[in-house]
């Protein structure tokens, strides 16, 4: 394969990754980034420079993990500039969104960052447990435990903030 053809094949491979740009922008926005477009653009730039590391079957877990790190770095920079303590992943309630259901926001804010991320990767990013586990760099078994715990805590917190509704144990669970 000559150099130009090889280059074209790399660009074709990257184009399949780049097709997920809107999803990465949405991910960064959901995680409270102040500039989700810039986060997604930077994640894609990193993907191009490290294309060998990006899974070819479904790059979303890798892209979300990269975007997550960039959002965290963004928060740390903002915290340093404000001379405060570094912040963790912000609760969606802190994000620049105006449509989040307040009880849902409160219930999410009650979760630990790790539990919240596990829950949101499935609920909002629509990843399967195995893909979500890959995004978090943990085993599928560990993810199932974390997800089950997060869902239970979220359900309880939501019931406390919405006492009129019923969020009891589901009749069927297959994670």
């Amino acid at each position, binding site marked *: 394969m000559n150099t130009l053809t090889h280059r074209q094949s790399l660009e074709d491979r990257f184009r399949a990754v780049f097709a997920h740009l809107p999803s990465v922008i949405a991910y960064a926005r959901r995680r409270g980034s102040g500039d989700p477009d810039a986060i997604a653009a930077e994640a*894609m730039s990193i993907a191009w420079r490290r294309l060998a590391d990006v899974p070819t079957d479904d790059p979303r877990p890798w892209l979300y993990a990269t975007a997550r790190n960039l959002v965290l770095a963004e928060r740390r920079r903002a915290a340093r500039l404000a001379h405060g303590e570094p912040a963790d992943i912000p609760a969606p309630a802190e994000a620049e969104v105006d449509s989040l259901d307040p009880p849902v926001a409160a219930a999410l804010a009650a979760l630990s960052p790790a539990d919240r991320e596990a829950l949101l990767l499935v609920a909002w990013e629509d990843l399967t447990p195995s893909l979500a586990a890959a995004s978090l760099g943990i085993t599928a078994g560990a993810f199932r435990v974390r997800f089950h715990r997060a869902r239970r805590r*979220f359900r309880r917190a939501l019931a406390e903030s919405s006492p009129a509704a019923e969020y009891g144990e589901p009749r069927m669970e297959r994670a």
Partner: protein
Amino acid sequence: MTNDLALERLRAANPAIAEAAENEALFDSIVSGPGDARLRGKQRGGRTRRWQLVAVVASALVVGVAAAWAAGSGDLQQIFASNPAGGGTPGHPPTGIWRQVAIPSTIERVGVMSIPRYGHVELWSAETEQHGWCSALRLPNGDWAGMKGPTGGAAPGCYPSRAQTNEAGAEPVYVITGFDYYETTVDARAAGGRFWRIVYGVTEFAKPAARIVDTVSGREATITRGRFFGLLVPDDDPGAASPKPLYHLLAYDASGKVIADSDKPLP
């Protein structure tokens, strides 16, 4: 996965839906940079092979430059020659130190800024024969910022170097902090976006900077092609009195050390 009502309510509360968008400019900008070295094609080695590669790369560069001219720079060389930012008009460039001649081979896109609900704004630059620099912002509709339309701020043009300007006087008076920048604004509020200030320019430090940070807004930008930068700063109340200072820029080197401060003259 489950009929968990709480999870369904969480799904329904999803605050951001992915929306398809045209991002060819961003794609082109990314793949124009160096890719993953691990995926480079295998080389057989030897002088002949190396020269073949040099020839291919040179051809690719020529194609790239030609494509860039065809796709974006358009008459940018002529715009730089007339130097609107320096007060010139077509056929009547400014005189004195503002007479800057852009080197055609250095005219290139050095960055793309993505503005929500507005589009991608490209930062183009060039070096000049007089060791100055040129810049222009290309808007999503293809216009050059400051030439026409609703954007405000600096027009495209070329600027003398700090040294060239200061040679004319006994005391350094120009770009004494090492930051030389201009501002353009775009207003995306009608489309549900925000009002943005685009701060763009060059750094002229003894040591190369890796990134700059505006401590007023918390925004930052990476340095491209050794010294160019474009910084996006939102302004949610552009009609109000500007904060003092409007910007406070810090430059960091690759190790994270502050090497320049827009409030302090360079030594």
